[in-house]
């Protein structure tokens, strides 16, 4: 669903449409960074209620949602000092990836989630935004407030680190 650039009054139908279009993405983004399903749900609720209560629909709702979600996520991480604990709870409590339950699908999902958990939060955030939100480096740079080249190099470092982690895990008996 594509939202028009023209500003409209954010009524209930508009909000429902926006949730159908972006709710899952925002939830997955929050769950990947927070590592906790309850906190991720709170972030989604907070962000959507805020955009509804704002009175005027944002010009670019998706960008607005991700930016608001990121602010809320980092605010929660700072406030509750979850930064370290989030990584530990990531695989135990919340699955933010979905794989078909065919042969080895769930194992592969758990393996990849564990690999993503091993990354530093900033690199993990970039992989999630690039791979699962299909954002360009320019969009990611705009969201994170960094140069596009930095976003690209950070993504390369993250993938390289993830590759090494996978090789180490496969080498283990």
């Amino acid at each position: 669903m594509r939202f028009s650039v023209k500003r409209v009054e954010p009524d209930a139908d508009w909000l429902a449409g926006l949730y159908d279009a972006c709710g899952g993405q925002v939830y997955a983004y929050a769950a990947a960074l927070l590592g906790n399903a309850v906190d991720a749900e709170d972030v989604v609720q907070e962000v959507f209620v805020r955009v509804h209560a704002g009175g005027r629909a944002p010009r670019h709702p998706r960008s607005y949602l991700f930016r608001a979600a990121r602010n809320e996520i980092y605010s929660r991480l700072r406030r509750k000092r979850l930064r370290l604990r989030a990584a530990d709870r990531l695989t135990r409590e919340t699955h933010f990836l979905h794989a078909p339950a065919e042969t080895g699908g769930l194992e592969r999902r758990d393996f990849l989630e564990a690999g993503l958990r091993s990354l530093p939060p900033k690199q993990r955030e970039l992989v999630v935004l690039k791979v699962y939100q299909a954002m360009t480096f320019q969009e990611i740079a705009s969201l994170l407030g960094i140069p596009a080249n930095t976003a690209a190099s950070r993504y390369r470092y993250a993938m390289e680190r993830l590759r090494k982690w996978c090789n180490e895990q496969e080498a283990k008996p």
Partner: protein
Amino acid sequence: MTRRQNNAAELADLEAALGACTVAPPPAGLRERVLERAAKPAPLPRSEIALRWAIAALVVTMAWADWQERQTAERMAAVARVETRPIEPKPHTWKTALLNPRVTLPLPEGYASVRIARRVSSLPSLNEPRRKPI
């Protein structure tokens, strides 16, 4: 295959594996909860509450300061009424009349006479025998 090519192939495989997964759907019921919460009137944000408290405190402080200023002005006016009464000179004794003849000083009542009394008491009396100079 060189090591670099091998790494590139592994990265491509990894990207493909990551891409094979999708993001997990949000929990069922979250959509309804979001819409239900959005339908409720939004509570005031903390900044708005803080601003209103600050304005209320400012108004109360200004009213209190105004009241204090009025009270102070009334007290000062009352004191000024008392202070501006004409000072009637005390009846002079023969000593004070001798040393300080009928001069009305613009001093608070009693001030001059006290000083003069002290000064007079420190003087040798006419009846006392004169001390011999050391």
